């Protein structure tokens, strides 16, 4: 446990220090969501109707923006070699890294969502629903992204490859995230149905993500 808690503390420290990128994601989220009303115009009913979808898309793109450095930085400076030589299983080390990454970049998106909801004319229940679905759904985005980050690191290609790999895999999360928010605000489906599927997607990615990422890195040892 010492090893994993040390890794968690290090990654959180790195995220909040200069150049760490903890704020980049949430600033990008802020900008994307602020731009939408300018593009669409001041139709408040329309904004309220598509608001949850905009917040979800913004959060998806913002979390993608910071995923690039999740493993690539450790690979470039040789830290990944030492992570492989530790006694902690690589799967757990990656799960820890992804958890730290979510705390530093995913959680701020959830916290910022209510403020941005106001900009999009969302009422209180809708804001609550968006927050709850983002809280449950953004870990899935991070842990699915972990697989992409590992593949990109194993192939030594970063950047856009990651976006191309990860975005299609996040479609189910996006669908059920927005669907549960819509269900909470407008119905007719009860909120619980899509929300339960969103929870299931998140839990499954928490398990599959670290294993798939460790498999990709081990396979790339050549």
């Amino acid at each position: 446990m010492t090893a994993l808690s040390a890794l968690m503390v290090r990654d959180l420290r790195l995220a909040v220090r200069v150049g760490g990128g903890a704020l980049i994601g949430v600033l990008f989220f802020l900008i994307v969501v602020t731009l939408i009303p300018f593009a669409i115009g001041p139709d408040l009913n329309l904004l309220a109707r598509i608001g949850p979808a905009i917040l979800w898309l913004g959060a998806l793109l913002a979390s993608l923006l910071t995923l690039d450095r999740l493993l690539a930085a450790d690979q470039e400076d040789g830290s990944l070699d030492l992570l492989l030589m530790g006694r902690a299983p690589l799967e757990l080390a990656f799960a820890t890294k992804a958890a730290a990454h979510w705390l530093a970049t995913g959680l701020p998106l959830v916290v910022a969502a209510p403020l941005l909801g106001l900009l999009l004319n969302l009422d209180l229940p809708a804001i609550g629903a968006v927050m709850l679905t983002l809280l449950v759904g953004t870990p899935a985005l991070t842990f699915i992204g972990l697989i992409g980050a590992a593949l990109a690191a194993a192939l030594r290609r970063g950047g856009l490859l990651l976006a191309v790999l990860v975005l299609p895999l996040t479609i189910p999360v996006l669908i059920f995230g927005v669907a549960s928010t819509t269900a909470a605000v407008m119905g007719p489906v009860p909120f619980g149905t899509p929300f339960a599927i969103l929870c299931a997607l998140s839990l499954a990615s928490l398990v599959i993500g670290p294993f798939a990422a460790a498999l990709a890195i081990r396979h790339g040892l050549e």
Partner: protein
Amino acid sequence: MKLAARDLACRRGGRLVFDRLSFSVARGQGLIVTGRNGAGKSSLLRVVAGLLTPEGGELTVDGGDPELSLGEQCHYIGHQDAQKPSLTVLENLTFWTRFLDGEPNRINDALTATGLEDLAALPAGYLSAGQRRRLSLARLIAIPRPVWLLDEPTTALDVSAQEMLARLMAQHLDGGGLILAAVHGAIGLKHAQELRL
């Protein structure tokens, strides 16, 4: 503990870097790996560390901790220093000591031995190349592991640091450790076998 390789082969990017390589290193012994650029010195060390899958042959370990893989008993000091520029010298070393199950009470000794004790609070990004290398070498002291894999360890080190490294290696061998070092010049490792690739 004894480390032996039999008919080891390594292929990278389709090119056979070396094959039919055999050697054996016992406790208290060093092995100097020499060869021209691209001969596979670094690849050999990475194979032993478990960071590269060999194309063929086998590596066997007698003794050591049966619960641990070979890589988990090795130190690997490579060309990349595994340090984060925004963390301080102390934070970098403390992290690896805790992650690699080292001994936190030896961190101060390690910084003193490598001459970094006055720089402990400095972000590692401000270190010179030689100081970064010293910080990598500090891991050898703070984290006791029986096998040291050193890839051109004297790069960027000044004379006093090279002497410090030679003393460290001599102590390690006296304590029953193993050292595999890829080098171009002399690094002051006495009684070592040479493996020419």
